[in-house]
């Protein structure tokens, strides 16, 4: 399986994501922001970092990079996309995911490990779970406070589109939401960093289970 990782100026978890894909024995493919080409990949990870310095709003400028045109088409056609941290912010700005990520309620950058619960196995990025499992994942963000307006939030909950929920909310996000998916369920955004726990040498490889799920979905 070929899994792409977008690289914007200021992305800083792209290497971690590429390494995690290698650890799974799959083929990592760098997708440079300036090229409107997904190189025929089967799935895409939009990694964390500070694309374009977070200028204006996190993700606001990355959303118009050349690579985003084909990425949006890929997402609308059902291609599996995982946005992590800044990648989640980019996907919200691009309207591939509903809602927005506000500044953390307590005004501090949060760098920690948090417990999250996998709320649904019905996405390509959680297909390897049964639903209800707990995971410990790193978080590192200043704007991770998920917000969606009342009606949108009610739909997300009713349709089972809250994919990950914090057990101990680190940023004030509404309904303890740590990750959501789009209507088609193929695009998932998550604030914690599964790619940073992809090797026991990094303390844990729990994050690989999320990344590996995309192969379950693809029948690999």
């Amino acid at each position: 399986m070929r899994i792409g990782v977008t690289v914007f100026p200021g992305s800083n978890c792209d290497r971690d994501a590429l390494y995690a894909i290698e650890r799974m024995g799959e083929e990592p493919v760098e997708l440079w922001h300036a090229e409107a080409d997904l190189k025929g990949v089967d799935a895409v990870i939009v990694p964390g970092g500070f694309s374009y310095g977070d200028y204006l709003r996190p993700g606001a400028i990355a959303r118009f990079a050349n690579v985003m045109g084909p990425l949006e088409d890929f997402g609308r056609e059902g291609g599996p996309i995982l946005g992590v941290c800044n990648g989640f912010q980019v996907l919200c700005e691009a309207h591939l995911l509903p809602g927005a990520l506000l500044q953390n309620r307590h005004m501090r950058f949060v760098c920690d490990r948090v417990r999250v619960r996998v709320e649904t196995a019905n996405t390509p990025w959680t297909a390897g779970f049964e639903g209800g499992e707990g995971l410990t994942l790193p978080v590192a963000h200043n704007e991770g406070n998920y917000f969606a307006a009342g009606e949108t939030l009610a739909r997300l909950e009713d349709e089972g589109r809250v994919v990950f929920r914090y057990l101990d909310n680190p940023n004030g996000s509404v309904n303890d939401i740590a990750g959501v998916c789009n209507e088609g369920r193929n695009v998932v955004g998550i604030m914690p960093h599964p790619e940073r726990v992809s090797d026991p040498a990094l303390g844990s490889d729990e994050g690989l289970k999320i990344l590996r799920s995309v192969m379950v979905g693809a029948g690999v």
Partner: protein
Amino acid sequence: MPETLKIRVLVRPKEGILDPQGEAVRGALPALGFEGVRTVHIGRLIEMEVESADEVDAMCRRLLSNPTIEEYEWEVVS
């Protein structure tokens, strides 16, 4: 030479949206002895020089603000 218009755009959090910066400043003012400050909201002021104001509204909607969480207003200053 096309004319140059000065545009001022004000972007701010929508009513009811959490504004941690505003809250922090509201909390800091009494610490300096400024009493009676009930609310503080912090937005962003964007000044631009453009050749035409025709597309300013589209700029506000598509890039300068995020309509999910922010509202904007703009004016031609000169």
